[in-house]
């Protein structure tokens, strides 16, 4: 059984009389430790797919099984618990809480898990160190650049040791140079912890970081192929690692 199994997933939005088929019928299997890119033009249904994988939206039809749990059938409370234990999230607009320092922002998922302040600060410090922002712990989001903010976002997504991290256009608001930094950081963290990363983008340059590229067009999977030439800035460190995605 794969880590993530999606079968017959459909999402229909109703706009008055009109029906919008955001996703028609998606079948997808993703293995643990895989970095999977969902590629497509704007409006192709990428975000819709990601949101349903993260349990933020209920599918119109179909099943999503993550780690053996059918998340489409969970109650709201169980879903929150599931998110605490299994998922991390990276947003295009960073979505940090403006009033909180980066340390507090990173510690938030742990706070929701009921960790004490001391324990989560310790963990958050480690994460900020790992993303190279040790000196920015007390800074508020608006005192930092976009790239720095997204690093805080990455630290927050990884702090609770999730099984899968979802990233919706994580570099959409960043310039080219920063984009590379952020992508490298994300990939490195995933590799280090053997996490599954699901990356949504419309940018082919970014897709090259992934093991596998799922191409969406108009709510259907147009192609699903292994990335033959994974761009891995740390290749020398992880060269013996298997990059074979599930078929």
């Amino acid at each position: 059984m794969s880590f993530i199994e999606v079968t017959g997933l459909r999402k229909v939005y109703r706009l008055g009389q009109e029906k919008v088929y955001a996703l028609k019928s998606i079948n997808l299997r993703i293995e643990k430790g895989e970095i999977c890119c969902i590629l497509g033009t704007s409006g192709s249904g990428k975000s819709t797919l990601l949101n349903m994988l993260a349990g933020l939206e209920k599918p119109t039809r179909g099943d999503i099984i993550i780690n053996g749990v059918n998340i489409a059938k969970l109650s709201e409370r169980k879903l929150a618990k599931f998110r605490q234990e299994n998922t991390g999230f990276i947003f295009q607009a960073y979505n940090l809480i403006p009033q909180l320092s980066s340390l507090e922002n990173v510690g938030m998922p742990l706070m929701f898990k009921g960790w004490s302040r001391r324990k989560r600060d310790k963990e958050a410090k480690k994460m900020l160190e790992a993303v190279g922002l040790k000196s920015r712990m007390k800074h508020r989001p608006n005192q930092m650049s976009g790239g720095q903010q997204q690093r805080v976002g990455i630290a927050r997504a990884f702090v609770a040791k999730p099984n899968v991290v979802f990233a919706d256009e994580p570099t959409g608001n960043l310039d080219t140079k920063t984009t590379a930094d952020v992508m490298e950081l994300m990939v490195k963290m995933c590799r280090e912890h053997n996490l599954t990363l699901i990356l949504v983008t419309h940018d082919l340059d970014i897709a090259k970081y992934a093991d596998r590229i799922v191409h969406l067009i108009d709510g259907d999977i147009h192609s699903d192929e292994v990335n033959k030439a994974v761009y891995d800035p740390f290749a020398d460190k992880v060269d013996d690692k298997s990059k074979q995605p599930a078929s």
Partner: protein
Amino acid sequence: MKLFDMIIMCLRNLWRRKGRTLLTVIGVIIGCCAIIVMISLGQGMNAAMDNMLASWGDLNAITIYGNSRYMWVGDSNSNSEDRPSLDEDALEMMKNLDHVETVFPKIEVDSNYVTVTAGKNGRYRASWMEIYGVDFSALEKMGYVPEQGDYPSGDDTLHTLVFGNEAAYQFRDTKKRGQNSYTYKQMLPDGTWSEPFFDPMTESVLIYVNNMKKQNDDGTYQSGGRAYEFKMTTAAVLEQDNDWQTVYSLMIDMDLAKEIINSYNRLNNVKDAKDPEFSQIKLWVDDINNVDAVETILSDLGYNTSSMASQRKSMQGQLGVVQMVLGCLAAISLLVAAIGITNTMIMSIYERTREIGIMKVLGCFISNIRVVFLMEAGMIGLLGGAIGTVISYVISAVMNTLGSDTFANMFGIYTDGSSPISIIPLWLVLLALAFSTVIGLISGFYPANRAVKISALEAIRNE
């Protein structure tokens, strides 16, 4: 989420919009002050009323009146002939009632029946003296205190007399004429009290039964003869008592009083003379709260009763209406404050939509979000309640020191001038704090429900 973290989050949110928080809290402060001050005025009124009633008489006492030969003007609803008689059986029954601690029966000797004289040859004479037959052994319990002498004691107290504080001033000097034949108690320029014509403690006193057929020129009656005369010795002169009932009267033994009444009936051939009955029985009840129950039992039996407690009840009823009106006015201002809290919280939802969405995506339980919202609303209430309480104490102190009369007249509030017009008991403080917090929580209920319904997806959608 730990409770501590939720409290921190709640405080941080309140602090973040401190201006609005402050305004909302001020609303609660005003409402809370209004309620505390209004209720404290009510408490003051009640205390003043109790003070006043206590100065009129004992709040634990019930007085039962016997059948009077006189028609009471206000007693038209019941024929006094129908009343059960106040005899020894009735006394025994009352003694055995639950909660009754002491009974004090009295027999009134009609002031028309006897003449009291003192001094050589009856020089000093009181013709219309009130005389009560009482149980001497109960005097102390009744709260009568001797100013001179001591409580009557010993085996034979039949011819012992107790003077009310100013009873000796009721005697006239028959050797003098006009104004000079009267005296009364007054403060002399040197600060001492004026003296009566004779000292009741040393002079012996004579009570004789009037012979109605032998009237003197001045309208008084002559004695019925040796057999109808009682030579008395005085045991005590009482201090002023608080109900003024005995100030001008004499007290004698119950048995002597009966003897005098029977003698009068014999001497003057009164037809259908009945055995003397008690003219009044005073009961003491163990607790002020039981007075009503005991009094109801007795009045249901047909007795003519009266008590401070029943007067207190009717006065309390009137005060209750006044207090209710004041309380409602105050409650309205707290209601307005509650709406203010709801309004503030709803405003803050709009500002925090994104934040709440992020929290949900990051795995925050809905229940935690709800608790944080309720806490914020409750905190506004509690804060307003606490500050309101402090301010109420200040207002109360100002009203009490600035002369209660001024404020009493201003608000048309009853006061006796001696007790404070505003009293804030501890229970009122606790009640106010609890009430304003609950008001806050209730006001936060709807906004909290709105907050948890925010769609995480809508909130984090990129615009």
